[in-house]
């Protein structure tokens, strides 16, 4: 028994070490385009494993990522840009004086990005988790819209539809990969604890979970706020990767992409979320050709911007109808090495 745990720990350590080594190697050896895709994969891994926590593990259908990622990106951008840089680019309205005063280093910027998202998630938890029903999905869907409306209508803070530009490019694979690794470890730590068990119990049978003394409101709120925190951090990393953000970046497509990722990987599996991220973010680059004009030899099709999204939605519907378990089901990597019968 002792030996098995030790073996498992060694394997975990080896996985973490080789991930970090790969991040270093890629950052120092690969070309800019590849590094950018890897950065995207790292950031989307953070988002996917946290989105999976509320949707897959806790079973509460939510459509929140674009809202919280937007908040994280804006909070981080406002903190990373110094007063001069902000004054220079606010063209629609003059910024409020306090907006100019905001300034922090990268670590604090990410921390506040996450914390601010988590606090908003806490506030949203009260209307949606105290009642039964699937109101979380519709409320978070609306929330994503409202955040964009707020960002557009408050140019004194957000520079309106022009967005924020010239954000210092702090994000690199050390940051994105390092935080992604920590996020995965943190999420797995939650899943393998009484909190994770309670989340799964709520997913499987909420009434039975309550009958075991589980405070379901608290557990759902924890899962939701944890997701929001990491999505905020991910948003901050994204802002410092793209160097410019605007309300149009955080449309529902952002959330939809993450939904495909976790469904394809297997709802409820963190391993699956990571696999899904690599497939979808990698595949999404590859699928760019769909939006472009195509020459089939016998006929040419015009450019069809948005074709990718049609393909994405067809994939989602197909997986749901014919392969609901996705790639991993609810299993994690280590479950693949278990004997039959054991769960």
């Amino acid at each position, binding site marked *: 028994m002792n030996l098995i745990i030790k073996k498992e720990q060694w394997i975990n350590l080896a996985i973490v070490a080789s991930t970090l080594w790969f991040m270093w190697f890629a950052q120092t050896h690969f070309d800019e385009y590849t590094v950018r895709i890897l950065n995207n994969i790292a950031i989307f891994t953070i988002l996917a494993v946290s989105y999976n926590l509320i*949707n897959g593990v806790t*079973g509460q*259908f939510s*459509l929140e990522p674009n809202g919280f990622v937007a908040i994280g990106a804006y909070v981080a951008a406002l903190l990373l840009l110094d007063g001069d840089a902000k004054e220079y680019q606010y063209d629609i309205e003059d910024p409020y004086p306090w907006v100019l005063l905001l300034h922090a280093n990268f670590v604090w910027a990410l921390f506040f990005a996450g914390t601010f998202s988590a606090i908003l998630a806490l506030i949203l938890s*009260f*209307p*949606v988790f*105290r*009642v*039964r*029903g*699937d*109101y979380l*999905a*519709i*409320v978070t*869907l*609306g*929330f994503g*819209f*409202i955040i964009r*409306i707020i960002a*557009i*209508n408050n140019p004194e803070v957000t520079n309106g539809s022009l967005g924020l530009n010239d954000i210092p490019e702090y994000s690199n694979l050390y940051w994105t990969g390092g935080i992604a690794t920590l996020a995965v470890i943190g999420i797995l730590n939650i899943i393998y604890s009484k909190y994770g068990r309670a989340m799964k119990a709520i997913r499987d049978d*909420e*009434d039975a979970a309550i009958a075991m003394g589980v405070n379901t409101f608290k557990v759902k709120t924890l899962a939701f706020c944890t997701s929001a925190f990491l999505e905020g951090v991910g948003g901050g990393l994204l802002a410092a990767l793209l160097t410019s953000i605007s309300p149009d970046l955080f449309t*529902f497509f952002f959330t*939809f992409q993450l*939904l495909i990722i976790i*469904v394809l990987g297997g*709802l409820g599996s963190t391993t699956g979320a990571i696999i899904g991220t690599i497939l979808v973010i990698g595949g999404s680059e590859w699928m760019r050709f769909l939006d472009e004009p195509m020459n089939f030899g016998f006929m040419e099709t015009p450019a*069809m*911007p*948005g*074709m990718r*999204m*049609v393909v*994405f*939605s*067809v994939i*989602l*519907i197909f997986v*749901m*109808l014919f392969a*609901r378990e996705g790639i991993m089901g609810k299993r994690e990597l280590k479950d693949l090495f278990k004997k039959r019968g054991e769960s």
Partner: protein
Amino acid sequence: MDFTVFMQQMVNGFSLGSMYALIAIGYTMVYGVLRLINFAHGDIMMVGAFLGYFGVSILGLPFPAAVLLAVVGSAALGMLTDKIAYRPLRSAPKISLLITAIGISFFLENAFNVFFGGTPRAFPVPEYMEIILSLGGLTFSVASLMVPIVTLILLAIILWILFKTKYGMAIRALAFDVNTVNLMGIDANRIIMIVFGIGSALAAVGGIFWAVNYPSVEPMMGVLIGLKAFAAAVVGGIGSVAGAVIGGFIIGFTEVVVVAFLPEYGGYKDAFAFVLLILVLLFKPTGILGLNFDKSRF
């Protein structure tokens, strides 16, 4: 405040509320029989508006015939989505159904976007609907007068179906217990399909009214209108048709009143329905007329 201005806004609110009500009925009926938030409902409304547009501008149909085409087409689409996407998932976990619904919604939006373009198209409003009537200082177009009248007629028909026909009884029974319906010797799946048909047909009417009053159609129009109509259904009490209508009017009036009298918050006009939704969930989750559906059933 000027009385005429106030009355004018009431007329506008009545018209806007009617459109929300027509769309909200579909949400509430589907929720009643399947406990599903049909995310695709707003997009089916969009398809209805597009069919009306195609009917008039491409096929050259007279307006009423285009409406009929839209109603029949949307109802068929609604029933088709149920048959191919929702029915196979009846016994699957709820989350699968919701994800599929989101998938259908996203598919319709983007397919229309790819094939017909994202720029709004001007809806060819028949001339007689643009005639402006004036009555004691109030002015309104024939279209804005027609909306509430047609809504009330349709509502009467729906209530008649629900309370006076065998299928209506089955729909109401299904909202409480699937077994009862099976005992009545009626195929539950058929009833659910009828519900999708009715809801989608009403959405198409709502969509065309929308296109006539804000004279344009575009692929993403269903998103926000759908969200607001869902909020209307929850505010009125999800599961109840009368509640959906009341909720629709509440949201319509609030929006009109806020824009008219607090113009500085006009940019947030799309947010009010959402705020109302949150307040209702916090303080009266069953809505104004709601049935307590979500009480755990042991």
